């Protein structure tokens, strides 16, 4: 059971504070901030304890979301609850930021009131909650002077732009793109996170894919949705289908609302999505990638006569030429510890829209490539001046980490064949299917 829930900004401002059981004083908020800011590096911050009160917190959207508890509750429950709470608030407010929380405090109090009673979680389903939540969200658009004229103090609406009568029961959850109501949209996203380690000799040492199918639904009512996956989709090693390149995952789990009666034969998921965002299916694949990893890297590191460190990197993208990578960040982590003494970094990059900078606090060079077409090859030469460079430290230039986003691409090859809503929605409904693969842990050892 939960004693209190509070939301703090990263600077420690109180945004939301709700006490459910009256067991602990409100000085807990300050105490929490004091504790979380004085933690040393090797203390894990997730659960902290002070005088019989446990503080469990997560960080989302740059905010601290904290639950306190006196009883010894399940950590998974509390952490999942906080994650769910952030998702709910994101659904209701459109986006998750200090500003949107500040502007929608009344809505958040209302949500909290319905979600938790006396410290016990009642429900977090948007289907049930939509009957109870009456306050309307204020979208956190950037304020312009023009806007100021019809927005009241503190972000509250004034009469002028208030036209619609109470549409509480059918109020759509605001889209994250800031468009209000009206549109019947449904998004099905296939999101994969890939983490790869490639050894110094170019051998793939580890590859993991964690994927999920996420449905975000803005339709007030939707009776049934059918999502068709690739027919050759197979789970586990034994169960291969078809003759071509099978789409295979190791493990797969589904949301409890998904009906699987047509899954075995036709690979169709049936569900009635509720408003808001939900994860319909999760899957994992280890080690056995169906395609080659998307990037190869060739590097050479040497010391030139002037005592400078030369790092030559050549990066090749092995994707089909039509695909392209967005926002590739490249962090050769160089554990040379005298960075603060660096006098200069000079660079030669193969195209002008790329940029590179030295990040002394991370002891890394940061090479950013905004767009990287498939099949292309980019190269860069970094020259670093390191005082007291020795041959031993040359050996210890660490690994190169890439973080990137691949739109319209899944590494497993999972595709959505079709997306049908039944009965056919009256009015224009829009269905979107999006694929994205991203990685924040793509490591290539040198």
């Amino acid at each position, binding site marked *: 059971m939960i004693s209190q829930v509070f939301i703090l900004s990263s600077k420690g401002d109180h945004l939301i504070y709700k006490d459910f059981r009256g067991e602990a004083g409100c000085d807990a908020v300050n105490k929490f901030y004091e504790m979380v800011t004085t933690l040393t590096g090797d203390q894990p911050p997730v659960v902290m304890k002070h005088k019989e009160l446990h503080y469990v917190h997560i960080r989302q959207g740059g905010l601290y979301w904290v639950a306190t508890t006196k009883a010894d509750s399940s950590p998974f429950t509390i952490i999942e609850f906080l994650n769910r709470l952030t998702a709910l608030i994101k659904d209701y407010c459109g986006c998750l930021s200090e500003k949107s929380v500040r502007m929608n405090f009344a809505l958040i109090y209302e949500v909290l009131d319905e979600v938790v009673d006396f410290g016990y979680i*009642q429900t977090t389903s948007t289907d049930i909650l939509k009957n109870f939540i009456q306050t309307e969200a204020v979208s956190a658009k950037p304020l312009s002077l023009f806007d100021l004229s019809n927005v009241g103090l503190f972000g509250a609406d004034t009469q002028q732009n208030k036209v619609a009568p109470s549409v509480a029961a059918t109020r759509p959850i605001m889209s994250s793109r800031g468009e209000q109501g009206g549109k019947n949209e449904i998004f099905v996203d296939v999101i994969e996170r890939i983490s790869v380690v490639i050894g110094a000799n170019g051998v793939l040492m580890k590859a993991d894919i964690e994927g999920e199918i996420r449905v975000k639904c803005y339709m007030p009512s939707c009776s049934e949705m059918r999502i068709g996956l690739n027919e050759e989709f197979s789970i586990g090693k034994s169960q291969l289908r078809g003759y071509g390149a099978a789409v295979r995952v190791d493990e797969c789990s589904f949301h409890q609302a998904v009906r699987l009666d047509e899954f075995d034969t036709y690979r169709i998921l049936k569900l009635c999505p509720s408003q808001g965002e939900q994860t319909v299916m999760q899957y994992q694949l280890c080690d056995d990638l169906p395609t080659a990893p998307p990037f190869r890297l060739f590097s050479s590191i040497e010391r030139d006569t002037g005592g400078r460190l030369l790092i030559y990197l050549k990066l090749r993208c092995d994707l089909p030429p039509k695909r392209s990578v967005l926002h590739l960040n490249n962090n050769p982590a160089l554990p040379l510890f005298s960075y603060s003494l660096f006098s200069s970094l000079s660079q030669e990059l193969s195209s002008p829209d790329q940029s590179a900078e030295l990040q002394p606090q991370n002891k890394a060079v940061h090479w950013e490539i905004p767009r990287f077409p498939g099949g292309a090859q980019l190269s860069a030469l970094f020259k670093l001046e390191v005082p007291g460079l020795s041959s031993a430290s040359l050996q210890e230039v*660490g690994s190169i980490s890439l973080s990137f986003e691949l739109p319209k691409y899944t590494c497993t090859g999972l595709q959505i064949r079709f997306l049908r809503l039944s009965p056919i929605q009256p009015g224009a409904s829009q269905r979107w299917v999006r694929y994205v693969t991203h990685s924040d842990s793509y490591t290539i050892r040198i």
Partner: protein
Amino acid sequence: MPYLGGEETVRELRRALSNPHIQTDHLRYRNTIHRVIRLMSQGVDVSGLFSEMVKACATGDIVQKKLVYVFLCSYASVNPELSLLVINTLRKDCSDPNPMVRSLALRNMCNLRLPGLCEYVEQPLTAGLKDKAACVRRVAVLGWAKIHALLPNTEIDAAVVNELYGLLRDPDPVVMVNCLRALEEILEEEGGVAINKPIAHHLLNRLKECDVWGQSEVLSVLQRYRPRSEDELFDILSLLDPALLSHHVPIMAATLRLFLSLCSMLPAVCVSALERARGPLLAAAGSSSRELRYAALCHIQLLLRSEPGLMGEHYKRFYCGYAEPPYIKQSKIQVLVELVNDDNVAVVLDELKGYCTDVNTETSQAAINAIECFPAGRIGEIRPVTRETHGSIGRSYDDRCLGILTGLLELKQEHITSAVLQTLRDLVWVSPQYGDAVCSALEKWEDQLQDTQGRGALLWLLGVYGDRLSGAPYILEDFIDGVRSEVSAEVKTELLTATLRVFLSRPAETQDMMGRLLQHCIEEELDMCVRDQALLYYRLLHCGIEDVRRVLQCGRRSDLSLGPLIGRPPEPISQWASIFNTLEPLMLGASSAGNSDPSTLTPYTLTSHSEPMTSDPHLMTPKLKDPDLTAPACSGQCLSLSSTLSPEEFERLWLQTEKGEFLEAYVMCPVPRCSPESLQVALQLVNIQTLAFTAPNKLPWKMYLYTHSSHTLTPHSSTTPPNTLILAEVLQAGGDGVKKVKEELIEDQENEREESVKEGEGGEERRGEMSGGVGGEDGGKGELLVRMRQYTGEKTTLTEFLSVLTTVLNAQHTA
């Protein structure tokens, strides 16, 4: 920000709230109330607006109502009288046709948290239990729990309790779960809601209807249920089995916990349940929420304590990602070390090598420490099947580990070097056969270290391998020349020992500097420990070189006592089943970060490892009789200093433990005349922490101590907590207060005392002594009264603690 400025704003808001024009225009009214709530959540005191807000409560606008209730619930305790005014509105709302209004009113009526208002609340609550809208019943059920929390001393009507039991069959699953929760609280004193067979089966059958939160709640309540027969047990298990694979981690964890408690007698079933849950746990460990990832990692560490092979083939899932926060990296490293086996040792070692140069200091140190575990024969121990092959496989990787470690030394980075030195010290202490390799690594040593721990480790290594390292005396000389500016007492004591050891092997080069060092330490040193140790060595040197050699060089016994440190046998699952799915594993992670293996430290290794400076306990207190000292501590129970207590906590616990085990005993031992510091050090060696003591010459002399005892061999270990705190007070039996206590003691607890003070002297003698007055401290035959308290524990623990204490005190006196 002008609107934060308190009084002016409050006055303006009050004007606005009582303005009839605003009151009639409900949007403006609502906006004004909005502003009040916003000020409130920013921490401005707006309690002055209470009466205006009470008026605003009477409205048909639900949004406005909700806002006002938020305000009222926060300030009701400040204005109990005015709150009475709200009750009328609330009671009227309770009979509103709209169920949402009814539930809102009912909930907030209880949330006002005013015990005085309870009498008004009970009637609507009773009606609420029978309401036809589920949302009202949900609120009403929890309302009774709130009333119980407000008035803990008044009994909740038995009829209500019965009705709550009846509502367990409510069609709405949330009402059912709320009933469970409310009954748990109301019946807390009777041990919570009674789970009999019909209720348990009813709950199990309806489990599917509940959402994630309800299911985990029901599963945790079901832990109290014991199936009557084996058939019933297996029915329940097969019903629950699919939930082990649930991708909702809370459900999976709660189910696994229930499995472990139901099958505590069937270890094979437990193991297969763990295997079933492996997939979801691994998925959670790779979840996109870092906090969830961390919680899963902590629980995986628990699992591995019993089933080291469980995750073996999935070791790659525990590779660190570049962007992960340090605390996740560190716990991944800890897991990774556990998963090493013959097949993957090369790969894992390579991976760990990559982490050693992490940007984060703590992470790189954790990785360096992790490498130490490899050569120590760990690989063979984890998988006993392959023990025969371990000889060759272990060997080749030993060299590799040492290669990595010595390679890291060449990076010449302060924190890495320090961590490597400490690791090397621990390594050769455990397995002296690597001495040669370490020596060759240290041969070219020329750096300056700032870090205390690292310097201590370096000195220890120099002392032990002084005969083989040609440069040892010169490095020592640098230290000795700089001893005046040395701050740390630990380094100084380590320096003394190292110098003496090097002197034994290379007297010609060392004699002069040793003389200088001893002179400085004895004449100028302010720290008592260092001075005492220098004096000790000085006198020892007078005894002749043979004695010095005997004391300094025979103390290194490592192989025998270190069994538990190197490979530990898998624990039974029941050891940790009770803390699974609680916050404790996450807290454990907090306390043990950086220490790769806290659970296995026996008292002996603890003194040597947690205080590197006293790496050889025999040196610190050479006159202690070691066998006597360690024997009681090793037999059946160990003392440990796992957590520290502040004086306030000590006092509170001392007063609280009236209920627990209590033992008073007289010890035939005079007040120790040695310095308090050395007594403290001596007690710390046996893991007793001194909290406070009076100056040696003060009367009455007192000392307060505490320690933790942990049972290793008791059969009840699954039921009692692993650590139990022992508090002790040692008094000189001279003051009046003590006499009084003694008299009482003799009258009341005659039998008990005779039984418990066997190691002292007989009862008559003591009585005689008491009538004749107690001898002073000069008598050499003084007596100490020891009072010990413990929460939960048997008398044997306390008597064993007492015997350890007595030994130390006697030894200190003779010293």
